[in-house]
């Protein structure tokens, strides 16, 4: 079996590499855009205007409270009906992944901001800074230190979750498995190879995050 795995890997390494590329691309888009939307969401949720914070809460709770697979299906069929042009599969699936991730990221960011001592905001305001200036100069830079490691972990989670995109044959690593499985009727071998690749990706990223966290702490 190990022999078969080696042969498989060598023969289809281009396909596996392609899968890794798509998986990382999807995860990157998910966390990247998810962070932008998540930041806005977090600010909305902390907003003093009640309807805004309420709507943000509803959005976050619904997206965290329903299965990602369901959301993938939903957006897969919903997005083409909403957009005036014919969106690609990739657009539909990444929309679902981004929106789902934005809900989780917003909670990471909110927790990171709220972990900053309230006195920091007060001190900045007492100097005459506006809330926005105090946020930008004092609170957010400190919150970033709390947020970055958690965001890295979200990236690791998303690498794994993008495997659901293979439901729609999107070209990610799990799709590679399905391709090989379909072509050769081999089940275990390609599955184990893909598993090992996933593990290498997530494990090395986790270690990298832990290292940078340690570096940040040492810099202090």
């Amino acid at each position, binding site marked *: 079996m190990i022999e078969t795995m080696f042969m498989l890997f060598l023969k289809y390494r281009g396909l596996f590499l392609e899968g890794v590329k798509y998986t990382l691309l999807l995860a990157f888009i998910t966390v990247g855009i998810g962070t932008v939307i998540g930041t806005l969401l977090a600010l909305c949720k902390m907003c003093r205007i009640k309807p805004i914070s309420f709507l943000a809460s509803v959005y976050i709770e619904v997206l965290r409270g329903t299965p990602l697979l369901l959301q993938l299906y939903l957006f897969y069929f919903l997005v083409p009906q909403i957009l005036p042009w014919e969106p690609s599969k990739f657009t539909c699936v990444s929309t679902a992944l981004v929106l789902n991730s934005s809900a989780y990221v917003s909670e990471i960011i909110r927790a990171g901001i709220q972990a900053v001592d309230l006195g920091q905001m007060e001190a900045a305001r007492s100097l*005459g*800074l506006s809330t926005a200036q105090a946020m930008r100069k004092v609170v957010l830079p400190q919150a970033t230190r709390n947020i970055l490691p958690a965001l890295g972990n979200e990236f690791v989670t998303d690498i794994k979750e993008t495997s659901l995109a293979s439901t729609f044959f999107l070209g990610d690593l799990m799709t590679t498995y399905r391709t090989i499985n379909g072509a050769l009727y081999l089940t275990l071998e390609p599955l184990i190879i893909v598993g090992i690749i996933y593990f290498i990706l997530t494990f090395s990223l986790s270690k990298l995050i832990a290292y940078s966290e340690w570096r940040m702490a040492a810099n202090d």
Partner: protein
Amino acid sequence: MIRVENLTKNFGKLQVLKGVTEEIRQKEVVSIIGASGSGKSTFLRCLNMLETPTGGKIYFHNVDLTDKKVDINVHRQKMGMVFQHFNVFPNMSVRENITMAPTLLNKKTAAEAERLSEELLRRIGLWDKRNVRPTKLSGGQKQRLAIVRALAMEPEVMLFDEPTSALDPEMVGEVLVVIKELVETGMTTVIVTHEMGFAREVSDRILFMDDGVIAESGSPDQIFYNPQNERTKDFLSKVL
């Protein structure tokens, strides 16, 4: 300079300030004393609107700060504040703690702010620490930094909220020296403090707060040696 009229503040059902009327004059040094929970910190924090009053008015140079149309940020630039827990900015160097606000708010050019920060840091003996993060400083050093950070905005009045309460005893002196030097330059100052000896020494006037009102107000000699109010007598007998 600051006129307070019938100020009230509720936290939920709890009324912390029950109608305070007071005036702080130019160059006056006023210490506020009283037991914990008497409302003295809340009163001080209302002066620059860090707490939003429930009722009453606060006039700073005859501008009503409780008016929602007033841009409070402009007025806060003229009211420096020092906190019990220092609240220095750990994400900036010691020097940037001082230069950030004046440059960001266009009160000073970068070069002017640099010069001012050097002068201020030399004054408090922290010039050689200018490039380190404040996390590396002792409590006393942090509080001295917090004081000059406020001074860098060249305020017209300084508000101190229990500036030595969170300090180890051996560091109280170094902070009080800085405040005393500041008071001697003629800075209008309001201090909430438990340091009775210090209050007696530097103040023009003492306010004794009790249960959300100013129960007694007078010169240090009057308050400490000849208090009229029973509550004042009772409080002083416990702390002196």
